[in-house]
């Protein structure tokens, strides 16, 4: 499945394929085995039982195992036969619940609660991703932690000229361009529905014989120490 990016630069917009370059080093195929044969990863029921520890007395713990439920312990938990449920403190299944998200500060304290938002992909939206401000390439590479690298390529001659021109300009100015989504072009990029938002930078290089390399660098973190 190829992802398409709708990119706008200097008033020209184009829908272009977004490719994922292969890793430089191919990860080895890992097999785990014992003398009996290949090892299988499975999910099993352990003996944990949900109990309110504050409600237990020392006598309860000494006389039995209230924190254990051995009836299903050791049996396989087939994901196809399990359904997700949400339970309250009393252990009752709750059917009418609300899904929210809590914003936590770096120290773990809760800042606010708000309705849960489901992000949708925005790289191939009606509104194109805008090529925004340029920033020095060295500053960008040493200021942000890049989590993903994707490559924009062309499908036809026009696309080739458009992208090569952009790559040449970025290289000549020793800059990367900040990419942004939305009407103002200041929103982070979301590549897939439900995916994480990333700040994106366009990195370009060109070489002889009309070749170029235009990379989208995705970052969700500055390269700095916590306050």
């Amino acid at each position: 499945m190829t992802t398409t990016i709708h990119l706008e630069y200097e008033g020209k917009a184009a829908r272009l394929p977004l490719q994922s370059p292969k890793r430089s080093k191919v990860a080895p195929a890992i097999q785990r085995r014992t003398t009996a044969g290949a090892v299988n990863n499975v999910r099993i029921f352990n003996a944990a039982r949900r109990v309110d520890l504050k409600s237990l007395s020392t006598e309860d713990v000494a006389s039995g195992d209230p924190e254990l439920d051995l009836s299903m312990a050791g049996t396989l938990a087939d994901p196809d036969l399990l359904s997700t449920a949400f339970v309250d403190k009393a252990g009752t299944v709750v059917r009418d619940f609300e899904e929210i998200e809590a914003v936590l500060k770096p120290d773990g304290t809760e800042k606010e609660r708000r309705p849960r938002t489901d992000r949708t992909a925005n790289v191939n939206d009606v509104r194109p991703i805008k090529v925004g401000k340029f920033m020095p390439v060295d500053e960008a590479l040493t200021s942000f932690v890049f989590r993903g690298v994707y490559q924009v390529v062309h499908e036809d001659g026009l696309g080739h000229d458009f992208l090569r021109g952009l790559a040449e300009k970025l290289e000549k100015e020793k800059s990367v361009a900040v990419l942004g989504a939305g009407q103002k072009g200041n929103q982070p990029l979301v590549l897939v529905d439900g995916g994480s938002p990333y700040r994106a930078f366009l990195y370009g290089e060109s070489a002889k014989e009309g070749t170029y390399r235009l990379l989208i660098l995705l970052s969700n973190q500055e390269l700095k120490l916590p306050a």
Partner: protein
Amino acid sequence: MPAISFTLSGKTLSCELARKVTKDDLYGRLKKLTIKGDEVLVRGCLTADGRCVPASSISNSRLDPEGSPVDKEEILYDGTSREPLPSSFEEAAPLETAPLKALASFCVTDVYPLEGATLKKGLYSTWFSYRKSPERKEAFVLAKDGDTFLLVGYAKNSPFVGKIVPYELFDAESATGGDEEDEEMNFAMM
């Protein structure tokens, strides 16, 4: 903090590996909650016979073909057995100067500050392995403005493209979120 050493031009450089820095440490994080009223509900599982068990009562395990829990296993890499190599704390990894643009095709998975590192400003390629393992991860050490970071991850081979795009050099799955994380984030950074 564990001590870690590198070698550069025949000299040994010693420093300390500080705790990993994540985006949660810088900006906080979003936590998904399921609530009823003020009570936060706990995720559980309904079994086929109608019992409700907490999610914590299900564990991952490794079984052999006979159904016995695996005690000792052999790990094959590309079909062959390999001896584990010393970790980064047991062997000094060599540093080689690298062009800054190498970071443009490097996907970072972990960031560790290096405390007490006395390196000239610049980028150095190396390897990192937190534990003994047959595989070592690709890494860069970046010295900048008084701070030094160890960036662990993997490099991507992004090719120059001409009139004809060499699609065989790209992953077939393309940008469908292979590098995506599930977590949301706060964009205070921008």
